[in-house]
């Protein structure tokens, strides 16, 4: 199973990569939404996109909208992780097309549980 982790923070990309790898995932990373789209275009298969909300160049909301129109990845599960707290923020992300939203802070267990839930692993 291959995941694409999208975050402008190199530290968080690494943390999330390691969390997913510990759960058995093969992980690619991207530094913003535009980079994510470029990578998705080149990836032969992707089972999960896990993206931050606030990023330069292209944010997570725009990324998920673009993914939902992508010729190959329109139905890929997208887990949005965000420091935006609150029900209205969650609703905005879901309306844009996110499969699930996980609010920071969260534990590694919560992240893996949510990933399993969205991918039905």
């Amino acid at each position: 199973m291959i995941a694409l982790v999208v975050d402008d923070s190199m530290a968080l990309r690494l943390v999330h990569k390691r969390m997913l790898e510990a759960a058995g995932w093969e992980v690619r990373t991207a530094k913003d939404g535009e980079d994510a789209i470029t990578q998705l275009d080149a990836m032969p298969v992707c089972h999960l996109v896990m993206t931050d909300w606030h990023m330069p160049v292209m944010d997570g909301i725009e990324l998920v909208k673009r993914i939902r129109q992508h010729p190959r990845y329109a139905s890929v599960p997208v887990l949005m992780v965000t420091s935006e707290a609150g029900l209205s923020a969650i609703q905005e992300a879901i309306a844009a097309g996110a499969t699930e939203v996980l609010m920071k802070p969260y534990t590694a267990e919560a992240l893996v549980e949510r990933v399993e839930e969205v991918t039905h692993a």
Partner: protein
Amino acid sequence: MRDASPAWGVVRAFMRSRCGVMLAEDQHYLLDARLGPLAREFRFPSVEAFVAAACGPSSEERLRRAVVDAMTTHETTFFRDRPFWKVLEEVIIPSFKTSGKRAIRVWSAACSTGQEPYSLAMLLEELWPAGAAASEIIATDVSEIALDKAREGSFTQLEVNRGLSTGKLVRFFEQNTLSYRVKESIRKRITFKADNLLSPTPGPKDCDLVMCRNVLIYFDENDRQQVQRRLRSSVITGGQLGFGATEMSSQGVPMGGGWYRPR
């Protein structure tokens, strides 16, 4: 770390008689870890003085409750153990709908801070709204402090992050400044009350489902059998008992996910 002290023996005997929980002799580190903060909170000069006051024959109820709360485990999450909830969602609740039942009665025993009964109430509302509105969920725990939190129905962001889907969070919770509270429409469907699983008085009667998960491991074999008999006596014919994933029951026919149909 201190050696086992007479105070630890007093706490073990108190917990055994008060709620049947077996604490091992070599867990004496819990004396300082769990009761040290209480001793300071209630302004006792030492843990030993607090234990003498809280666990003695004429101790104050508020101190006894604080000890029970501190010594029992409240680790729980929404929709804990996916296979348990999958069987409930895909097999048990649909069977109630097709059987023509109009409502069910459920006992969520040892419910801790309420995540289990709230999970059930949300699932029932999603799958069987007409039945959910008429059904009764009785949720019990030995800790009054845990029950107070359960009744309030407010959970931190870390708590709602565990096990609760975004869809359920949006649908069934309202946001407060620092927490998320289960909506009144769901809260009012659950009756929370204190109960000791080893009580000689029967539990709630005529239940279609009785759930008691991840708690029997804290009892010795005799008490475990006694609790299982009491739980079983609350289940109506055709009803089901739900236990934790690691808790095997000899009380019924396994239905999967920790569910048993009493023999």
